[in-house]
């Protein structure tokens, strides 16, 4: 995975299309990650690769934009009192271990079944995890919305919080007390997923909500801390190998720093279950997208036979659906922000009218 010599890496020439694409995807990805704690990477990496960027450079440049974006987003949401730094750091520490194990598994699969096997493993993990976890997140958001919007701690989280297994840890902002032993697997799984599909937040945020018992708001904000720590570590590693294309990174960063702040502001406008709705929706659409990529890898492994044109059609559809996932997420965020802002303006206007007496 890391054995590509820097000299052999081809850095692409920038065109206006490339710059526009990266800027817009950066902005939308930033918006989504400011809101739900992660996102964007799953479109950016394949997107950059389709522009001709070598895989390693795409991953490296993407990661190098991720941690400053997460830093800015986390700072903004910390100012809103949504970030539990302690929880973030504890999770990040165990996630670091998870990443190493995840990479080891990847390398082992690569050695056993080659690149197609590795890709199949990645796609299948995507589909299985996203369908199961995303489906539950979406169901829970739907349930909360129907019940009127009030979030309640999950029964599993309540049960785990009641188990007194030292060392117990108290997380002030998340307002929960839980044994350290239950936070470790969540962080570990986040790291494993980050190493596999590059979006650890899809496990980290639901894990913090449903297993540890944090609110959607705190979980998504804390995920940004985890993303910063992990992204920073990863970027240093990639930069030492000379893989970071700073031009690509900076263009994505230009869009995503605008987006991440808008997303963070968005969380203060909308009802809490909106975070779950957006996350669930994106996860399920991404799962469909990755599901479409599975036949290609099955064919490469010789399990099934398919026409080449069908494969390219499926891959095209897969990428477009991936973009749709991000777009839909962004639309839901902007739409609900717009509605909330309009309601607020109307209320302020009514109050001002009420006040005018002289």
């Amino acid at each position, binding site marked *: 995975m890391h054995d590509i010599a820097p000299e052999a890496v081809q850095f692409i020439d920038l065109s206006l299309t490339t710059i526009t694409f990266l800027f817009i995807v950066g902005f939308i990805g930033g918006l989504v990650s400011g809101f739900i704690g992660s996102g964007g990477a799953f479109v950016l990496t394949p997107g950059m690769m389709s522009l001709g960027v070598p895989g390693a450079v795409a991953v490296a440049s993407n990661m190098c934009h991720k941690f400053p974006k997460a830093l800015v987003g986390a700072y903004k949401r910390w100012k809103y009192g949504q970030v539990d730094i302690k929880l973030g750091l504890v999770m990040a520490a165990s996630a670091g271990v998870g990443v190493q194990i995840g990479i080891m598994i990847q390398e082992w699969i690569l050695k056993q079944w080659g690149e197609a096997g590795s890709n199949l493993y990645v796609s299948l993990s995507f589909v299985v995890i996203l369908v199961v976890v995303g489906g539950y997140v979406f169901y829970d958001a739907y349930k909360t919305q129907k019940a009127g919007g009030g979030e309640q701690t999950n029964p599993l989280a309540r049960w785990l919080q009641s188990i007194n297994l030292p060392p117990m840890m108290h997380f002030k902002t998340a307002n929960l007390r839980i044994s350290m032993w239950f936070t470790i697997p969540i962080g570990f799984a986040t790291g494993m997923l980050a190493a596999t599909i590059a979006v650890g937040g899809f496990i980290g945020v639901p894990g913090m909500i449903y297993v540890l018992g944090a609110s959607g708001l705190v979980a998504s904000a804390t995920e940004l801390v985890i993303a910063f720590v992990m992204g920073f570590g990863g970027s240093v590693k990639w930069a030492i190998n*000379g893989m970071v294309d700073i031009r690509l990174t900076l263009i994505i960063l230009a869009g995503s720093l605008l987006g991440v702040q808008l997303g963070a502001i968005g969380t203060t406008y909308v009802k809490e279950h909106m975070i779950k709705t957006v996350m669930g929706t994106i996860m399920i659409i991404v799962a469909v997208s990755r599901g479409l990529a599975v036949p290609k890898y099955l064919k490469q492994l010789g399990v099934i036979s398919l026409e080449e044109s069908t494969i390219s059609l499926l891959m095209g559809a897969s990428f477009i659906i991936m973009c749709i996932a991000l777009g839909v997420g962004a639309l839901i965020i902007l739409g609900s922000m717009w509605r909330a802002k309009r309601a607020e303006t109307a209320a302020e206007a009514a109050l001002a009218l009420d006040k005018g007496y002289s």
Partner: protein
Amino acid sequence: MLNFIKKIQGKERDREENSPRQEAGPDQEARPKPEVSRKILVVGKGEAPDVEVMDYAVNLAERLGYDLIALSVNTALGQKGRFFTPYKYHLREKFTHRARVAGEALQKKAALRGVGLEQVVKFGDLRSAVLEVHRQNKRIEFVIAQNGIKEKEVNGDLNIPVFTITGYQGERAMAKEADSRGSGVIGKTVGFGLATAILYAAVFMNTETVMHYFTKGAWYAALPIVTVFAFSFVHGAFSNYLWEALGIQAPKRVQPRPSAAKRPVARRRPRPELRINT
């Protein structure tokens, strides 16, 4: 705690004794006594205290469950002496009339928020006007003075706190943060925007050199890391101010605070007092 309650009850008794009793009789204990609400005295030098000061006072009164007395003092027409001409009487009448009109508007406005408001018009110096009002009205807890009135002017022999609203932020300063879409934010947006543009220009105009050193690996790895940090600070600040300048910022009630208890419709609750059942 007990001492405190006793002290309050003692004060209550004193007040009851000092107040003129309309009906004194053996059956008085059984009848509910008229409740006297606590009051804030708002002092202004014009026909009515400024809008901002009144907004602040009405907000405060609503939250505390107090009533308001708006005192309009005309210091210019105060001294009655040899030179007090009929024209000055006319001016006084005119001032009183205008003050009453303004007072009625204030009353309506306060009534919307469930706050009782009484308007008083006085002539002469502030100190004696406040003293007089204080004598006539029981339970004035403190005084809010409009900008430009010094505490010394108001508080002579009285022993009640006087607060001055400085500037004209009044209600806005209390209810929400002042509108920050001023030139400061726009200036910062432009400043950080320029700095961001310079940084981007610096990198993209020297792409070859930058790419040569930044992809060398090993210790040169610090270059891209430091660069993205620098960009995230400058560009991050720029985008922060940009959204703020565009009016997109978090509403003030971000932190869910324990909301204050809703004000009951009947605000005058009977106060605890000792009674002897006979």
